[in-house]
């Protein structure tokens, strides 16, 4: 089964991340790098995203053209910082990988719709 892991966090998580010292940041990235290396065989496309302040959205109403707005779709305190596609046998295996995520915040696991 293919899943996408969405690496999410609240504004507080983002603030805590931004407050990391250079050394701490290096350590964090090292941990994350190790995590990706460890699960390399299961991970497909993955990327870290620029912050929500860089987001642009095209919103579609029931009819008519989309309207371009500044800002992310998720308007609350949550934001998505990155994603990784994984290919595993079941949710338990996905959970096992997600549990070891060193980036803190919240990891949302979503199954990918695959054509039969």
């Amino acid at each position, binding site marked *: *089964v293919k*899943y996408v892991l969405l690496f999410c966090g609240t504004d507080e998580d983002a603030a805590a991340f931004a407050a990391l010292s250079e050394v701490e940041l290096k350590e964090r990235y090292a941990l994350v790098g190790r995590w990706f290396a460890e699960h390399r065989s299961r991970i497909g496309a993955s990327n870290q995203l620029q912050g929500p302040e860089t987001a642009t959205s095209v919103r579609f109403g029931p009819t008519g053209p989309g309207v371009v707005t500044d800002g992310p779709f998720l308007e609350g305190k949550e934001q998505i910082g990155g994603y990784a596609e994984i290919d595993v*046998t*079941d*949710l*338990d295996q*996905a*959970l096992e990988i997600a549990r070891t995520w060193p980036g803190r915040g919240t990891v949302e*696991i979503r*199954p990918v719709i695959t054509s*039969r």
Partner: protein
Amino acid sequence: MAGSWHGGDSSGHNVAVTTATEETLTALFREESGRLTASLVRVLGDFAVAEEVVADALMLAWRRWPVDGIPGNAAGWLWTVARRRAVDQVRRDTRYVGKLALLAAATPEQAEPADEDDRLRLLFTCCHPALSHEAQVALTLRTVCGLTPAQIAGAFLVSESAIVQRLTRARRKIATAGIPYRVPDVDHLAERLDAVLAVVYLLFNGLPHEHRRQCAAAGLDRGCRVARDVARSAYAHRAGGAGTARADPAAPCPRRRTV
């Protein structure tokens, strides 16, 4: 187990049978429905279809047996009917092509030895942490204990449609999110056991009297089995006694939660 239970609740069934037969049937159905569902979920990997064909088989028995008498091998009879219905269902849906051979090969005799494991797997799947506590409880009562949505609704003073919806959503999540059908390995058993115990505990304390005995027996039965398995695995893995202690059915259960 059959015939030893006297809290028969026949509401929702309009078939006229004698009281004694009705009680025997209700008890028998409760026992067999969990067993059958568990085996069919293993073969089909689909809760909805498994429950549907089991319901069909029980319905047929409910009509036939008061007239024809209960067959000597009641479990085998039900299994044969349910399997036949499952084959029909599977033929209609190309997604299940690979399951046909499995179904054809699955005889009650072969299903029997794996039976207890199947039901234990079913219990762990129903109580997977990816499902809400409410969904876990409803699904366990439906599939492991064989209560009808109406009975579950009555027990928790919720509307039947709400329970049906809860069950549908839970089954869909199991299928689409890829929640596996198995007992977790020893490394994860302890953390998964809490949810199972919370549900089993609710079977003891949160249900009206007439359902309690049946469900508690079913839950405790599986609970003891988990305890034995954990003890065995823990010993084999030299993982110490932590897992064993938590699996002790006599140990204090998690605090009661409402549904």
